[in-house]
């Protein structure tokens, strides 16, 4: 359960960062970004918890109470990790500064998570795995930044 949770965390962080960057570049509104982060936290937490619940339920030897407990832990952990990205937007006044700090913090957490994943593998290339994960996250964030900008531009052209 722990390794599945950790691998889920990596994807959750990338999704949260991408949503945050896309929304902040497209709307430049703090409220929109904050609500996006909360929604992603709930959705990611719920989907991982539901997957964990279904996979545990296939094993009939596991008690129902334990299944619910583990699913709840997965939901709480994932939601907490993603919800922490709200904090920069609460403490920093400018949305650009808050987004930049959240990106740095997210990439740092991602490098720790990916390093931990690499340590569990037989062929332990820790730094290489960290660079790969962080590099992939940066590429995804860059693409979503331009997507957000493009959508805002289209809406501007349409006069919406």
């Amino acid at each position, binding site marked *: 359960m722990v390794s599945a949770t950790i691998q889920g965390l990596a994807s959750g962080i990338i999704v949260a960062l991408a949503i945050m960057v896309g929304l902040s570049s497209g709307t430049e509104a703090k409220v929109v970004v904050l609500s996006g982060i909360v929604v992603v936290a709930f959705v990611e937490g719920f989907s991982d918890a539901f997957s964990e619940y279904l996979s545990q339920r296939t094993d009939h030897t596991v008690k129902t109470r334990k299944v619910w407990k583990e699913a709840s832990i997965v939901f709480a952990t994932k939601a907490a990790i993603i919800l922490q990205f709200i904090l*920069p937007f609460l403490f*920093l006044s*400018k949305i650009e*500064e808050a987004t*930049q*700090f959240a990106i740095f913090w997210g990439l*740092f957490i991602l*490098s720790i998570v990916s*390093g931990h994943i690499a340590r569990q593998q037989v062929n332990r290339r*820790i730094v290489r795995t960290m660079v790969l994960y962080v590099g992939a996250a940066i590429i995804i964030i860059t693409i979503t930044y331009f997507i957000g900008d493009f959508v805002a531009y289209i809406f501007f052209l349409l006069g919406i």
Partner: protein
Amino acid sequence: MAKASEADTKKSDEKKADKEKIGKKKTDKKKTVKGKLGKLIIGVVACIGIVEMIILLLTLQLSTGKVDSYITTTLWQAIFIIPLHLPTFLTSGMWSITAALTIGAFIGGLIVKKIKKGILVGIISFGLLLLLQFAVGFLFDFNALIAWYSLISSLGSNVILDFLVSIGILITAGAIGGALTRE
């Protein structure tokens, strides 16, 4: 006679082999100590180098041209004082100081490959930054150093708290880096 000389030759050969073994052990030990110290020094240098690069390029947003024209003593003091007063400057929106300390100590920890050494990288880096800050003050312009601390106090900050937060971040990030690459 021949047997005696054979035995002598054998003994001297054994003595030579023993001496070589001892010599090899000493060389191996020296290499290990050098290797350990070398990694620690590289970790500290990497930590401070990365911290200062991020402070110069991101926090102070200086290009090469601007660095040339900046008042030298103030710049040198700024790059050593700013990382050690994170909470003070964070309230002014300078979040990149957190990034500088975290990334610098994290990479230093990755290099040393041990949790304890990662912590040591954090502590030594903090000590060096503090020393360099006072060294620049004493060697070039002590009044400017006092002015910096007056500015920090006027912002309502606690110098001890600033130091504790900065060293805490350096130690934590160094330990995490060391924990990830430990063998």
